[in-house]
């Protein structure tokens, strides 16, 4: 048994592994949607439109939140629990700000007449960005749970695994947004 354990310790933690497979699965969902978008792009009556400036701000927000979650993990590993909590809260707030900025962006689009049913080229924007926002909200909820755990006295965990998984997931939704943003800028 001892031998087995040392052998297994070298491997990635199984839960982290699960997360990575889940990430590839989610990636394929976005790949499916964006490739559908590319197919449509090549058809006639494509409508050109401009992305609102606010999406630049939201991109910056989520990029910064990636840095803060990274700092949170580092603080956790070094045992600086108060810094860890601070960084966790910052990330959490940035996540909420990001989602609000996205929603505001869409309200602006809507007011410009770029509504959901106006044209297929625009329709795509809503499910793609919407699904991404859902994934960010999922992350925000997970952050909230971690945050509550970090403050509860009862539960003393010293395992870095959940924190590291959280940060992997967060970097992932960040990465997906940057991909989508560049994609939308290029292909629009």
């Amino acid at each position: 048994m001892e031998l087995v354990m040392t052998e297994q310790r070298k491997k990635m933690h199984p839960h982290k592994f699960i997360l990575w497979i889940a990430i590839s699965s989610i990636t394929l969902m976005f790949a499916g949607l964006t490739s559908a978008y590319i197919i449509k792009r090549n058809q006639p009556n494509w409508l050109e439109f401009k992305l609102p400036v606010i999406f630049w701000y939201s991109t910056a927000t989520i990029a910064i939140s990636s840095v803060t979650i990274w700092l949170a993990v580092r603080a956790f590993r070094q045992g600086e629990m108060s810094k860890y909590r601070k960084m966790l809260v910052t990330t959490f707030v940035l996540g909420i700000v990001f989602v609000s900025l996205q929603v505001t962006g869409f309200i602006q689009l809507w007011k410009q007449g770029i509504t959901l049913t106006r044209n297929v080229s625009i329709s795509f924007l809503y499910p793609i960005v919407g699904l991404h926002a859902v994934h960010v909200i999922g992350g925000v909820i997970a952050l909230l749970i971690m945050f509550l755990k970090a403050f509860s006295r009862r539960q003393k965990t010293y395992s870095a695994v959940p924190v590291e998984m959280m940060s992997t997931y967060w970097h992932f939704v960040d990465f997906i947004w940057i991909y989508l943003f560049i994609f939308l800028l290029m292909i629009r």
Partner: protein
Amino acid sequence: MSNEAILHQHETGTHDVGHAHEHHHHETFITKYVFSQDHKMIAKQFLITGIVWAIIGGLFSVLFRLQLGYPESTFPWLEDFLGHWAKGGKLDPQFYYALVTMHGTVLVFFVLTAGLSGTFSNFLIPLQVGARDMASPFLNMLSYWFFFAASVVMFASLFVQTGPASGGWTIYPPLSALGEASEGSKIGMDLWLISMSLFIINALLGGLNYITTILNLRTKGMSMTRMPLTMWAFFFTAVLGVLSFPVLLSGCILLLFDRNLGTSFYLSDIVINGKILPNEGGSPILFQHLFWFLGHPEVYIIVLPAMGITSEVMSINSRKPIFGYMAMVGSLFAIASLSFMVWAHHMFVTGLNPFLGSFFVLLTLLIAVPSAIKVFNWLTTLWRGNIRFTPGMLFAIGFVSMFISGGLTGIFIGNSALDIHLHDTYFIIAHFHIVMGVAGFFGMFAGLYHWFPKMYGRYMNNTLAYIHFWVTMIGAYLIFWPMHYEGLAGMPRRYYDFSNWESFKMFAGLNQFISFVSIIVFAAQLLFVFNFFYSIFKGRKVTTLNPWGACSLEWSTPIRPGHGNWPGEIPEVHRWAYDYGKDGRDFIPQTEPVGEHESKH
């Protein structure tokens, strides 16, 4: 992290990780049978839910076969049973389509995906790789409950006023996208989409666990190439699911948008009852791409587990090592990868560029190569074996027979030139029922008869099992073989009544015959269901640890293993899983160290 730690982490308190003992934590009825995190119980939950769905889905086919076989007759008892769906004892055409659609959906997804992979991946993976449970027992439990929720929604859709979805199991838009288009495209279609979304989450959560457990939680000495072929098959199945289901999910989400929010992803230039719809710019072909990118891998999600089970059961009951182990693994890999590159063979007649089509023809026909390798290896495993014709073995042999027959017709329709004639005829129905439907069921039956003693500590009744096998085997050929002729003659699938067509009148007798046999075969399945439930409580008890004389690890557990599988430490593995008839010994379990003078395999 070790297996022990995985099992303990959902409990509070500190556990010292090194110790291993049978678990005595207090289980209530709820945690043991309902919200269980034990992979063996979850497997049984998948199995029994699957059996219930199989009965429902099979009954649907009996009902629509009544219509197809006896289009002139009326069955007054149908009206008592179905109400306004069968006025005057004759199926309503709208309801006929609902039955066909639900039959396909239920059997493809709920029975042959959840019921097959859900049962055997859950049950066998930890037992055969030597793990105490799945990598995440909690996600595993969640996976079953998503399946349960999907089942509830789908079941509810059977009872809504306008009926369940009725556009075929492939739910092509525009029919499925427009509520005005048919009764079944109203609320029934929304429920279908919601149910399938829940189902997809179930498949993804399950798949994540299967892959991770196989890659990370194997016991000491269990290298990948020492695993039984079932493990390889379940592994590739899970990979296919994890990569293809999310694409179907995106397709379904866009369809939900089109249905409920007025977008036009799949819609353009449509007129219903003289009314021109505003939708413009979409393309229904887009849906077909998204659907078949999942849909084709999906058929292999069904057949790969059956292949793995067949390999295992066949080797054990031939008392011979499986022939060409590495070739079997390689061909599983080849089939899994190719299955992502052939989806457009379902779309040869959609106006696909013929130049592009020829690539898909080539890739499609390439699948025949790994398929043939597998068939060859099964036959050579049987060759000069010491064959024990157990019920499991009979179904495994039956699987190979079905796979050969159905694979051969695949080569016909894989040619786009022939497919133009055969597309959407009964030839296609015959092809996929033999190669996927019946073969998938045979794999499942082989597995059930074989592992029932491990699941319930009892045997199933052999006499009933033999009757079940022969009726099903002969019946399946009698039902589906003649459909090839109907298809070659151009008889289209999904039609309600063929008696109006001069050219199909000659098939009236044949259709009647097919319907008659279907009813007998359905009855034989009920015999199986009876045998299954009777044997759980009253079957002959298993008294030895390893009743089949098998090498793999699951037979080294107690007759009725508890949560955690092995009472002591997890055994170490020293050899592959197929040392049958070696050095004058009948079999050598995987746990036995390699002797000094042992020959190499």
